[in-house]
């Protein structure tokens, strides 16, 4: 099966595009939660008043496994050194416009020969916009 690789893109073109060597294993929703509050009127059984506020940019995370030192360096660079907004293209072909907030790479397992840089990571960002997916039910097509 063809898998669409995740990649980072700098809208300003300052930093060259980076394609993930391995896609993240998990991600939180990039969509904002609706700001809805409920208040009741003073009467017992009175009408419930529902308010909806403006959409707040959601905190977004995705994570997976860093496979080598180059992968680690790239994730670190995109988390901290690329100013402004970046595009994250995911496996659905969605362009997720976000502002990186940080990268967590905790040490949780002993080093293994040949996989010295293998660590789990979590990338944190604030999502500004999400475009529509480009991948259909049959998955990505050749050349996509």
């Amino acid at each position, binding site marked *: 099966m063809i898998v669409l690789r995740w990649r980072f893109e700098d809208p*300003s073109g300052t930093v060259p595009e980076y394609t993930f060597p391995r896609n993240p294993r998990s991600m939180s929703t990039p969509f904002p939660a609706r700001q809805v*509050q409920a208040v009741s009127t*003073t009467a017992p059984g009175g*009408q419930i008043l*529902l*308010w*909806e*506020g403006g959409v707040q940019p959601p905190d977004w995370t995705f994570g997976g496994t860093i496979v080598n030192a180059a992968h680690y360096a790239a994730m670190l660079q995109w988390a901290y050194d690329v100013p*402004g907004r970046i595009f994250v293209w995911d496996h659905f072909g969605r362009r997720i416009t976000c502002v990186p907030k940080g990268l967590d790479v905790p040490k949780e397992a002993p080093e293994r020969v040949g996989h010295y840089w293998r660590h789990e990571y979590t990338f944190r960002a604030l999502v500004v916009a999400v475009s529509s997916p480009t991948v259909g039910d049959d998955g990505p097509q050749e050349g996509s």
Partner: protein
Amino acid sequence: MRGDLPEGMEEIWRSGNYVGTDRRPFARVTVHRPTMQLYTYGMTTTFRRVAPSLDGVAVFNPFPQGIDPTRGDPVTNTYADFLFGALHPPKELPNVAEVSWTRTMDADAAQCTVRCWNTSPLPLGEKPRGRELDRPGWFTAKRGTWQFSGRWRHEPNEWVDMLMPDNVLRVYEGYGYDPESTPEQDPHLTLTGVWLIDDVRLSALGQLVIVCRDAARLLLDHQNFPPVVPEDFYPTSFRAWDEKVTVQSQRQVVRTTTATERLKVTPLGSGNDRWPESAYVGARVYGHSHLHAFDGNPATYWLSVGNATPAYRSSYEYVDFNVHGATFSEIRFTTVGGGYTAYVSMADAQGNWRPGPIMGYHRDGRGRYDEGVPYVARKALGGSEGEHVIRFTTAVKGVHRVRLWLNGLRNFGLPGAKYRAGIREISVRGPVTRTVTETVVDQRQVDLTPGPAGSNPGYVQDFTDIIRLFLAWAGLFWPQGGRWLETDGSELLLSPAVADVEHLGAEVNGRVWGDLMETGTAPLAEISVSAFDKKSLREGIRYLEETIGFAFWVDETGAAQWRLPNIWQRGNWIGGLAELPGRTSAVIELDENQVLMGLDATITSRNVREGIFVGNIPGNFAALVGGYNPNVTGLRRVGGVTDKHFASAEEARVMADLVAVRQMLRYRTDQLRIPAFPGIQIDDQVRIFERVTSEGFYHYVKGISSTNNLATGEWTYDLQTHWLGDDPEGAWIVDRTSLSEVTRAYVDALVERRPEWRVEQ
């Protein structure tokens, strides 16, 4: 009560469902740079102010027949427009986080606070500067214009001159929004305020807080002083037209006068002319000519030929002159020496002597003069040399030649015949009639002809005229052709249908931006300069509010509202820019089951008086009425007022009743919170239902505080109210039976009034 709300807004408000793009609370804010436009009019008063009379009392010359544009004093008035003269379209302010405002009867101006974020997204594709995220400080005034702006590579942007004090915000709020529409055209929103920026507070962390007040700020910032007050109107004092004034008027009087004056005569000659050897016509005797008797110089004189003795019958000498037929009444002459006897003979144009006794002259072989000449007057002159007068009791008419004889000649001591006559001056006087035109100044007390307050400094026909002038001077003049620019560059035409020439002046092409009600009365006594001078125009209006009992505020459209508080009759005014302004009996209900989020009621006896008296200062009369108190405990609190202007017991009773009503209104007050609804305005009546506080009364809305938090979506109104009495089912809003008949008639007359709306029906 607003009559121009977006369709469906009340339904959404009552539903309690404020979720979704079409229903969630929203606020959009525009900002623009206003430009004050001044309109100067040269007009004419309906009276003429003339110089003070010598006793220092100013007098006026009115035109009782009405305004005569060709007469009266020229007067210049300048009105100011701050709201319709913007040169550039507004811009919509993004990033708004919260809009809150408070509009209350107790404050001189409403206040608004807008919180927003002072940053702008960096357009995708542009390179960030350093580690800067987006464009912080993007809305800071003058950003990029300072000498040091290059330090951050800041350059001027389209917001350079926008978020600055004195610029104008317009706030549009409602339920739901249309991102494709401009704020002005957004079908979900309505204008909830026009605000003048007072403060712009910027924080390094990117918060931007804009504090504003409504257009009443124009009245607070502008003092009652030139140039806001035109010179012809400064210092400002106001009086009614119904007083009597001292008037001067001029008229021309033609008078005929008759006086005795010197007449023109022409010398003809003398008896000397008959003696050519010693004299000839005009010739001189010892250097003396008959002309010397007419030259006006008493030092020269006519001298006759000589006679050997004065006793001869031929010893008469004479001078002839022509009076040209003039009517005369006397002949005056002075002689050289005295002792003569004078005779006067007169002849008509044909030389016929006027009848009378015959002169005693005879030639007797020695004389050469005419014998038999009659004379009409004779007078012995005595010994002195002074002036002699021969008067005719009846004025002489139709005479041409006059002969003045002298007899009784005197010795002049000259060689040859010594006895001669001498005359220094002769004049003829008679009645002269002359026609004289004189200017007579009359003074009288008359009524002035009322004219527009805008062209008659110091005179008003109604207290509301003062309000109009203050508003038009401050910046709330509304010119014909007025328009608001919108954010897309289009124009919203807001032009008065009719110019207010009746109040602002005959030449004016506009009116005041507002809905003003006539008070039906004018100052009983002059409101002197001290009430207004060098105070803010708002302070002057406050003075009138307290005097008249009217209320003033600025509404959501930035327009002035001046009217009787809406406490006398059930219902509400539908005003503003509603298509059909007017009165409605509808009152919005605030029900605990539907929209009431909280309520605090206060009942208080702090204002209760068991008795209220009103009288005049000398104590000739007074009225005492009972105050409202549902809890009779025997307390005996009495309050009252005396004033010299009360003219009758009936007037005092009206005042006492009105005080009692006001006191009753303060007995119960509420503070309540509801979801915001722009349909409710201050000066509205609402009816509230809440079980715990036993609230079911009609209330008067005297204050509204709105908080629209766009982050949480919560948009609420906090209302300050007082009740309108304890009989919500009664026909009247107050207990009519507690008022005197005179007071009921007074109030009935008041509630019949209606504001002069901006929108013509």
